[in-house]
């Protein structure tokens, strides 16, 4: 017995709608079995994973806070991946964006001005973009593989932040503990509603997603991204420059990752500390693919992934499921979503060896 795929002439509408539901059903089923085997009530466990975090207003705010950086980074990455540029160093661009954006509030703490916040955001974006520019430069100039350089730059960025937070940027009144002084109120990203602490980052994320969706769908640039991504040769015939596309996609994704970084520091943390990201830059890669590299899909997948983090916590507290089990459950969900998406582009049939043995040999 084996599984055979047959390519559909075009993506199935039905399955692009059904596949996430199917994946969810499979996850619930197998996750339920896993919880049951661990001696937990599966219904309770699934309830606290998927429903509990959605029942309270404060929790919805937290969901937005968690989803915002994932979405911001992932929509930028979708442009990269669509154009066949493999930036996997968003984590580093996020970190550098946080650093450059924090220069003003950390080094000029006496400066109170409404100007400070917009400047911080711009500096964060510029920092992230410039940092993404390094692999872009190396790729266009020396033909260096961007997967590797962007990944290496992650570690360097993290160590640089570590050095700053423990060294020159340390709060002079902070007993030499490794964090900067707290940002002045003018440098803190405002909350959007009174009912919780969700701040402007989620607005940035949604705006960025809609803007990039518009670009990909209706603008020549979007077409250029798609064509160059599918075939560099075809793109050249159309008069597009692959080299310029490297720059464009890397700078866009770098800037968005940088914006996510400074938004996180300014809105959620309020000071600079040695580590600011629990791996957002890497998780966002998964978010980008779960959203099928479509900016609007990414908004949805960002919220789903954020929900699994919050749900994992809720399950730990209410029924004592360990953090590791939540990670396993998250992994299960990712696997099912990724495999069910196959149904969109392919017909799957299960064939027995007997029937296909002959044809396979001739193939």
């Amino acid at each position: 017995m084996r599984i055979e795929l047959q390519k559909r002439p075009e993506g199935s509408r039905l399955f692009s709608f059904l596949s996430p539901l199917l994946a969810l059903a499979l996850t619930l089923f197998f996750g339920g079995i896993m919880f049951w085997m661990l001696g937990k009530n599966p219904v309770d466990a699934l309830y606290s994973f998927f429903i509990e975090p959605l029942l309270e207003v404060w929790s919805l705010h937290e969901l937005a806070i968690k989803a915002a950086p994932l979405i911001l980074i992932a929509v930028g990455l979708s442009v990269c991946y669509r154009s066949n540029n493999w930036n996997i160093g968003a984590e580093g661009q996020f970190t550098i964006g946080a650093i450059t954006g924090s220069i003003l509030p950390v080094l000029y703490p006496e400066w109170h001005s409404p100007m400070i916040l917009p400047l911080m955001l711009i500096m964060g974006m510029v920092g992230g973009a410039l940092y993404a520019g390094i692999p872009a430069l190396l790729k266009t100039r020396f033909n260096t593989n961007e997967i590797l350089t962007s990944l290496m730059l992650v570690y360097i960025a993290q160590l640089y932040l570590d050095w700053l937070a423990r060294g020159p940027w340390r709060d002079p009144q902070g007993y030499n503990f490794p964090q900067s002084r707290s940002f002045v109120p003018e440098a803190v990203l405002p909350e959007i509603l009174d009912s919780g602490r969700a701040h402007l980052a989620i607005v940035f994320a949604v705006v960025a997603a809609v803007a990039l969706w518009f670009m990909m769908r209706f603008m020549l640039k979007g077409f250029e991204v798609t064509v160059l991504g599918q075939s560099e040769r075809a793109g050249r015939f159309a008069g597009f420059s692959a080299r310029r596309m490297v720059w464009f996609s890397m700078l866009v994704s770098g800037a968005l990752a940088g914006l996510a970084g400074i938004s996180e520091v300014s809105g959620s943390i309020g000071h600079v500390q040695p580590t600011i990201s629990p791996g957002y830059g890497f998780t966002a890669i998964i978010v980008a693919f779960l959203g099928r590299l479509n900016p609007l899909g990414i908004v949805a997948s960002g919220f789903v992934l954020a929900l699994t983090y919050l749900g994992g916590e809720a399950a730990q507290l209410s029924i004592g499921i360990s953090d590791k089990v939540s990670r396993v459950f998250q992994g299960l969900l990712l696997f099912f979503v990724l495999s069910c998406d196959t149904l969109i582009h392919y017909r799957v049939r299960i064939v027995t060896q007997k029937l296909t043995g002959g044809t396979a040999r001739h193939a």
Partner: protein
Amino acid sequence: MLEAILLTVITAATPLVIAALGELVTERSGVLNLGVEGMMIMGAVSAFAATQITGSPYIGVLAGIAAGGAFSLLFGFLTLTLVANQVATGLALTILGLGLSGQLGESFVGQPGIKLQPIVVPLLSDIPFMGRLLFQQDLIFYLSIALVVGINWFLFKSRTGLKMRAIGDNHASAHALGINVIRTRYLAVMFGGACAGLAGAQLSLVYTPQWVENMTAGRGWIALALVVFASWRPLRLLAGGYLFGAVSIGQLHAQAFGIGIPSQVLSALPYVATIVVLIIISHNRRTTLINTPASLGKPFVPER
């Protein structure tokens, strides 16, 4: 003292070399598996658990290999049979591996492990200096060298290796020539998983004979970097692995010696070095292109 330092470098470099070599084979067949860290940690926990239960680290080594190989099948099924995206699946594999290994290993935390003992090669181990470095090592070190040499021969001298490289370069035409693309890729992915598992076993049986969560601490990612650093060539990979090990051990010695450079700068050195070397070797456009598997990461579905 030099001898002692080199011994430390060998221990530090061996898991990187093995895991990277496995990934090199996987990538040569045209598949990019970013889940090395996840497979490695599964290998580490399985090797440790099997050793504790049976009392034999050799069974542990086998368990590590088996666990890595089995875990990679999950990746293979998704990316090869179901044509899911390789980058995302690899990352998901890492998430799953880190969680699962933590869960499986919970009861083994804090137990003192059993170390895989060195095998002394008669006569050769008496050679001054080199003897102690190269011929009084454990099984996994010998395996790492044998694997590098063997894979180098396999890729560039054997018929099957040639076929595999053909698949990596252009799966459509390899398929047209009658090569079974999917089967070969499954084998390559499993080899990568088995190597990652073996590397994990080295961590929990030789490097530090114990089990703690997250004990791979990013070594799977470094292995991925090494593959590209070596431009997909096993012998360069060996050199790169040892260079990487040497830099990271060297910075610790520099500190113990009392050189007053911020430790973050020293810690960043290996990564900077990788980028610099990478620029130097990829500056020559032609050599990089020759070695890069052209269909790396691209999905393949056989036409019927």
